[in-house]
């Protein structure tokens, strides 16, 4: 049988994307369109005392200014982290309150984008501001216990630490960071005469947006359709329902015409979520031979004053290595910002930077090779619950990565490797990501021409989901991938998973495979029952189906499409759902009502995680201490890889962003006004092409039928997880300076050198 699964396949939507034929949410041009613009406030805390819209309404073409004065009442819903659909539970314009800088206080609608922009600039907002703080590292910022998860405890970590042969403890910090997707947030809202709302908005979860907006506006969920066929980067920022979407719908209803609203690049930094700043205290105890005896991780992370946003890294980091005693818990530090949210590997990137830096510090303290130390403490059972990992190939990743990178050429002595005016450092860190499975449904239709159509309300956020869906259908039906048409990103389609938590491919593919098999069975059942057909009287179980060709025991063979053509109506269609067996029916039912429902990563029988190892070479200029990274190697294990080409791009992109996170990205907070200072892509640094080195990636083979029938674990986030620590560890190796705060920049190295002089 010819397999397409796991081979490199070009994107089926690639041509449309590069030619501009792909319609992103803001590309839909509607008749009678008007344009919206948000007005945001500079104050970070206080209240709006007056909004004067006279000057704005005098701008030619101005149609409406939506403010708290004329905002209709809407239903209060929960934030995403409390089980609701909202980016934050605090909804701007529903009161006079100001809770964060850059908060929307008005939405202007005008005949043209230019008029909307001009009118927005003329909305006069008077505020009564109060002192505010947006910085968790400020002296007056106080931590509180996180409401969940419960602390993790195995044995008495403090006790073991106090008697450990070798113990280290250190604090690590990470800054606020922003997603900065190329595609701006936008929403286009159109109401029909019978109160049907269509929203075009880039989304990682169209179903949830539909349910959420309907609930806020008090209209039936089936009245709201959300379309998001293509997404120009999201990374978590388009995963929950942001308020500009609902406000646009309200404004469109008021003006009685479609409204299209773009969020400006600067507003992108405040109207939705971001990666919260965090601080981590890591304590490790070990025997002299490197055996870990104690592992302790306390995480304190930023949240808003109105939502408890917990990105517990502890739940993952405590499962990384075996140890006799383990403790982990989370705390939150509320400050005056919007609620943070998920940004690519939200629970993993900051915590694993801390843990994998600390492991490196321990290796140095022990005089053991960092790769060896990690191998020594590898485990095939979950150190917290004792259940086995469904699969865990960390050892293979480390060993293969070390070979590919040339790790064994590393001279462990600090500053010992040099070339011309550069200090060379080699660093390693591991990566892990929990395997969670969300249910999905799918509709598959096969016609008599051998064409199949696959429909799921899943999303292609640039990852290649269209192609993954086509591959799974092609593989299961035995058709060429070119014969598969895929529809995603529309809330009227069968419910799919959120494009978050690296869950799309696993959930969606499981449902598509099941639907394709059901279609095939339906066709075969019809064929054997058809008295005058080539397979008349055959037993379905004895039929042999390969590459879309069915062979009967009588030796006759016929193609699946031919059998479909002979069926009444000439098509076979199935809509079905899939969910992981460990997920309760109640959760599954909730999923179909737009709620989050996930199985894993740890069930009563297994722990399910993907793993990886990342190796980085840094070059530090001897004089200026500028840091460059000429090469990176990443080896990952994530079960079945659906599309080898897109998967390589995915983990490569993850590592590149990891490098960016390590060396560049930081949203700077103004201490006096609690505002983000560098809210633009000139001063919020991200790498340019010239910064991106040779990136080598590989997947090790891994089969895991416990996670799902296809053995897919998900790779959306894994690649970014280990990079920052690998960079920090390499910088230490090159320079002798241990930097425990991200980003790592030459300013820190040059200051450290000066301090030593």
């Amino acid at each position: 049988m010819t397999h397409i699964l796991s081979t490199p396949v070009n994107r089926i939507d690639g041509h449309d994307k590069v030619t501009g034929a792909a319609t992103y949410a803001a590309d839909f041009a509607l008749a009678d369109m008007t344009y919206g613009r948000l007005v945001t406030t500079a104050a970070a805390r206080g209240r709006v005392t007056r909004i004067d819209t006279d000057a704005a309404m005098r701008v030619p073409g101005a149609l409406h200014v939506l403010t708290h004065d004329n905002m209709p009442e809407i239903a209060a819903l929960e934030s995403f982290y409390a089980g609701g659909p909202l980016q934050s539970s605090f909804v701007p314009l529903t009161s006079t309150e100001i809770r964060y800088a850059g908060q929307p206080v008005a939405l202007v609608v005008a005949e043209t984008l230019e008029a909307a922009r001009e009118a927005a600039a003329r909305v006069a907002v008077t505020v009564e501001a109060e002192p505010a703080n947006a910085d968790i590292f400020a002296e007056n910022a106080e931590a509180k216990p996180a409401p969940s998860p419960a602390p993790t405890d195995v044995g008495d970590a403090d006790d073991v630490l106090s008697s450990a042969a070798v113990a280290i403890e250190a604090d690590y910090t990470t800054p606020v960071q922003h997603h900065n997707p190329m595609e701006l947030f936008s929403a286009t809202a159109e109401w029909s005469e019978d109160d049907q709302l269509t929203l075009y908005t880039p989304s990682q979860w169209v179903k949830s947006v539909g349910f959420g907006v309907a609930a806020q506006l008090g209209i039936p969920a089936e009245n709201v359709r959300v379309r998001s066929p293509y997404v120009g980067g999201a990374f978590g920022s388009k995963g929950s329902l942001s308020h500009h979407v609902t406000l646009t719908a309200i404004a469109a209803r008021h003006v009685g015409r479609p409204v299209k609203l773009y969020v400006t690049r600067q507003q992108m930094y405040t109207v939705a979520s971001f990666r919260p700043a965090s601080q981590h205290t890591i304590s490790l105890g070990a025997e002299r031979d490197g055996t870990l005896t104690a592992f302790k991780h306390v995480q304190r992370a930023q949240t808003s004053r109105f939502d408890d946003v917990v990105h517990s890294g502890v739940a993952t980091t405590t499962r990384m290595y075996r140890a006799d005693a383990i403790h982990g818990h989370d705390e939150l530090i509320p400050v005056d910002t919007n609620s943070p949210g998920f940004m690519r590997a939200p629970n993993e990137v900051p915590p694993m930077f801390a843990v994998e830096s600390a492991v490196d510090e321990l290796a140095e303290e022990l005089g053991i090779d960092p790769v060896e130390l990690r191998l020594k403490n590898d485990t095939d059972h979950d150190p917290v619950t004792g259940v086995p990992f469904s699969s865990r190939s960390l050892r293979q990743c480390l060993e293969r990565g070390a070979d590919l990178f040339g790790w064994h050429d590393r001279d462990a002595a600090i500053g010992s490797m040099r070339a011309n005016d550069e200090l060379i450092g080699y660093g390693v860190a591991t990566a892990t990501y929990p395997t969670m499975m969300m249910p999905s449904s799918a509709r598959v239709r096969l016609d008599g021409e051998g064409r199949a159509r696959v429909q799921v309300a899943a999303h292609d956020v640039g990852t290649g989901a269209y192609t993954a869906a086509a591959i799974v259908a092609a593989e299961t039906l035995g058709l060429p991938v070119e014969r598969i048409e895929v529809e995603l990103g529309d809330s009227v389609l069968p419910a799919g998973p959120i494009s978050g938590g690296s869950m799309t491919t696993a959930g969606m593919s499981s449902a598509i495979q099941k639907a394709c098999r059901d279609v095939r069975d339906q066709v075969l059942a019809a064929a054997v029952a058809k008295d005058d057909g080539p397979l008349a009287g055959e037993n379905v179980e004895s039929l042999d189906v390969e590459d879309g060709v069915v062979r009967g025991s009588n030796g006759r063979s016929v193609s699946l499409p031919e059998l479909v053509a002979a069926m009444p109506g000439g098509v076979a269609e199935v809509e079905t759902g899939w969910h992981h067996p460990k997920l309760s029916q109640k959760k599954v039912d909730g999923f179909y009502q737009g709620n989050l429902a996930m199985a894993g990563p740890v069930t009563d029988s297994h722990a399910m995680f993907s793993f990886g190892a990342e190796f980085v070479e840094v070059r530090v200029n001897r004089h200026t201490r500028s840091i460059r990274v000429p090469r990176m190697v990443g080896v990952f294990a994530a079960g079945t890889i659906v599309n080898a080409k897109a998967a390589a791009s995915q983990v490569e992109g993850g590592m590149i962003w990891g490098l960016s996170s390590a060396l560049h990205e930081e949203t700077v907070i103004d201490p006096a006004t609690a505002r983000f200072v560098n809210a633009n892509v000139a001063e919020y640094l991200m790498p340019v092409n010239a910064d991106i080195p040779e990136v080598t990636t590989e997947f090790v083979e891994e089969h895991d039928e416990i996670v799902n029938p296809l053995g897919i674990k998900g790779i959306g986030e894994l690649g970014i997880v280990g990079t920052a620590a690998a960079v920090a560890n390499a910088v230490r190796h090159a320079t002798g300076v241990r930097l425990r705060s991200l980003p790592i920049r030459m300013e820190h190295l040059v200051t450290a050198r000066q301090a030593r002089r």
Partner: protein
Amino acid sequence: MQHFVWDRVDTLAEAAQHAARPGAAVVAGATTVSDLMKLGVLEPSRLVDITRIDGIDRIEETDDDIRFGALVRMADAAEHETLKIDYPALSEALWRAASPQLRNAARLGGNVLQRTRCPYFRDTDANCNKRKPGSGCSAIDGWAGMHAVLGTSEQCIALYPGDWAVALSAFDAEVEIIGPDGPRALPFEDLHRLPGDTPDEETTLGPAEIITAIRVAKTPRGRASTYHKVRDRESYAFAAASAAVAVELADDEVSDVRIALGGVATKPWRAREAEAALKGRRLTEDAAQRAGEAAFADAVTRQDNAWKVPLGIATVSEALMIAKARV
């Protein structure tokens, strides 16, 4: 964004006439002006587009000098053969600036007038004595991580962000200007002002004056020159620190040297103390380091930008060694 008139002029005389009208701003590539207009920082009622004027869009060489017309594109000057070979600092400062798109649009005359990237200058909700005299300085009270350590005042610590003007400061350059009172010339060093008590007055240009050309005197030091730009990312980033250096050695000793600094000062910064520290000495790594230290002896730092001093010293020192290798 308010409405404005776009004046396209064909002659310098016409340009000068339009530039004198109230609310007028002269633009060529308009890369800075359009950016600041979108932010609401600049609100000119009239843009005078001088890009159609003939005769000031060329690079001309004589035996004594190179004359850069104000309308020469940054990208074209960067690729000029004489610059690449005989004045590498002038070429490097151009191709290491901005992005290819910006270098294709921006012209040399406008480039030396580039405005600061101080985030508070660019944010109309912040206090800024440069944007709104007397309103205060949010940078001094707030985040000063990218701000100047040289040439600052109690009113302003905004950084001059450009590159080419820094390189020009390491040569004997003159600015040719046309204004209501006819043409005049000005030493390049006198073009930019220190912020002092009037940070809103960034240059010595009169309100209706237009730069027509920049003239650089030829010198053998040009060949042994470099514009060393140090930054966090490889391209499309402002200098964290930069040094334009040109050296001349005689009998292994420094007979003449020019050092100008970028990324650390409120204007293109000529480091005469550093030059003096080197003259008559052998150009060793130690001497280069001491020259760097002399350049920053008067630095005024804050917690956020104190790192600019050790970085600046290292930048000067490394630039000197690069230039030395070109002697």
